[in-house]
């Protein structure tokens, strides 16, 4: 039963990584930039939900919606102020800016919410489910997390494959110049992707903080880096890749913790990434598009 418990925990943690990784991968796909501030949006989402529930006494679900709305706006504003002016700049300049935005968010959080860890109230308040006469206990949060992840995946797939805006997003990811000739407003499309990614980050933040209930200004950093790893693992730019990468990363992490050692878990996670990239440089589901000359 221990094995099954670990699988469930792994998939659950991986689902959170997957939701964060989707934001990384979609932004990379369209803006060809690594938004290292994405992890800190998770933290902001966590704090917004925390404030709504703890200080305003709102129901958890309303807190989640508020966090989502807040982060969506934050994502749009960050893109507009920090990244849009650098659209034609070398990618290194954009990367440094993203790191700067990340520290800006962390320090702002430090200023507003102070450095002492907040105890995050779980948004899922259901009793633990027991199977096989108490041998297998499944936390309802795990189920909610996995279901949310599935819903996000299905929703995003439908959006990108079926709707006009979703197809325009794919068109922009491939060729912005040609996309604007179609009458697609490329800047608005990039804004939309930041909005979606940041909204998802807020959801991930709430789920993450519910599972690991200490909330600090640096809470988003490590999950952000891991989710970025997951996105690269699955093939950056690929939505199913981010999903697969996230879940696998979660499972590897939990298994490494359970069977090898907590201290080594992160090293093993990144070790696996290195091996995968040696064998498949584009990631599991990524494809290398050769540069046309």
């Amino acid at each position, binding site marked *: 039963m221990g094995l099954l418990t670990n699988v469930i925990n792994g998939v659950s943690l991986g689902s959170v990584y997957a939701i964060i990784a989707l934001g990384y991968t979609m932004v990379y796909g369209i803006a060809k930039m690594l938004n290292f501030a994405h992890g800190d949006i998770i933290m902001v989402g966590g704090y917004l939900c925390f404030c709504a529930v703890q200080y305003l006494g709102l129901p958890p679900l309303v807190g989640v919606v508020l966090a989502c709305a807040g982060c969506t706006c934050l994502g749009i504003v960050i893109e507009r102020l920090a990244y849009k002016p650098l659209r034609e700049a070398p990618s290194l300049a954009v990367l440094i800016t993203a790191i700067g935005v990340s520290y800006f968010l962390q320090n702002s959080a430090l200023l507003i919410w102070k450095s002492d860890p907040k105890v995050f109230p779980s948004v899922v308040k259901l009793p633990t489910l027991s199977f096989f006469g108490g041998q297998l206990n499944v936390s309802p949060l795990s189920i909610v997390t996995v279901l949310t992840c599935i819903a996000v995946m299905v929703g995003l797939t439908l959006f990108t494959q079926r709707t*006009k805006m979703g*197809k*325009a997003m*794919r*068109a922009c990811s*491939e*060729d912005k*110049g*040609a*996309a*604007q*000739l*179609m*009458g*697609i*407003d*490329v800047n608005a499309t990039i804004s939309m992707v930041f909005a979606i990614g940041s909204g998802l980050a807020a959801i991930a933040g709430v789920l993450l903080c519910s599972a690991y209930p200490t909330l600090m200004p640096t809470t988003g950093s490590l999950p952000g880096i891991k989710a970025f790893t997951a996105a690269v693992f699955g093939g950056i730019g690929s939505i199913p890749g981010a999903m697969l990468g996230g879940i696998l990363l979660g499972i590897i992490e939990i298994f490494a913790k359970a069977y090898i050692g907590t201290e080594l878990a992160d090293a093993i996670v990144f070790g696996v990434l290195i091996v995968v990239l040696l064998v498949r440089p584009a990631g599991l589901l990524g494809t290398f598009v050769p540069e046309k000359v």
Partner: protein
Amino acid sequence: MSMLEVSDLNVYYGSIHAVKGVSFEVNEGEIVTLIGANGAGKSTTLNTVAGILRPRSGSVEFEGESLVGVPAHKMVQRGIALCPEGRRVFGNLTVRENLEMGAFTRPDDEARETRREVYERFPRLKERRHQLAATLSGGEQQMLAMGRALMSKPKLIMLDEPSMGLAPILVAEIFDIIKSLNDDGVTVLLVEQNARKALSIADRGYVLEVGGVTKTGTGADLLHDDDVRKAYLGG
């Protein structure tokens, strides 16, 4: 009054003066071609009309309104479509999705109707509508690029090197299609390296040399012009 009027257009790439005082006009219902060697500024001129590049000076007027400063993504709504050099189809989108993108600014029901017309004009695209555009042959991709441009129901279609890299039989087919588009009332501004073909279907032509217009005339006149024959038609 001419449909498109470009006067004294100057475009720079950084410090390079790519288009030097180019002037030309396109009247409604015409096929007008810009011919000239590599680097003569033909594509730059089209890209400037399309709003991708900004001119340093000069004017571009379409149906009496200035196009200078209008962003590229607002052009299709004004009735101008550019079919860019190198086709630039969306390889990861299906043929049908590419066509849908061409009609991005139009309501879905109108787009469906236009898509039917495009399929009639290019039956091959209909056969391959569920295929990814990247899997099409060069000729099919060119047809898709043209079909995609037509999806916006343009009054003026600008074609940048539509015959580039195609086998002779396909080149002939592409030019037949351009002619038939024009017969159906679409005004065409054509940039071509294949000057002979371009002039043979064009009402009028302009010869561009290192950035400026050096000659203009009807397609037939230019075809028989000694200088043009020597420089662009192989004697």
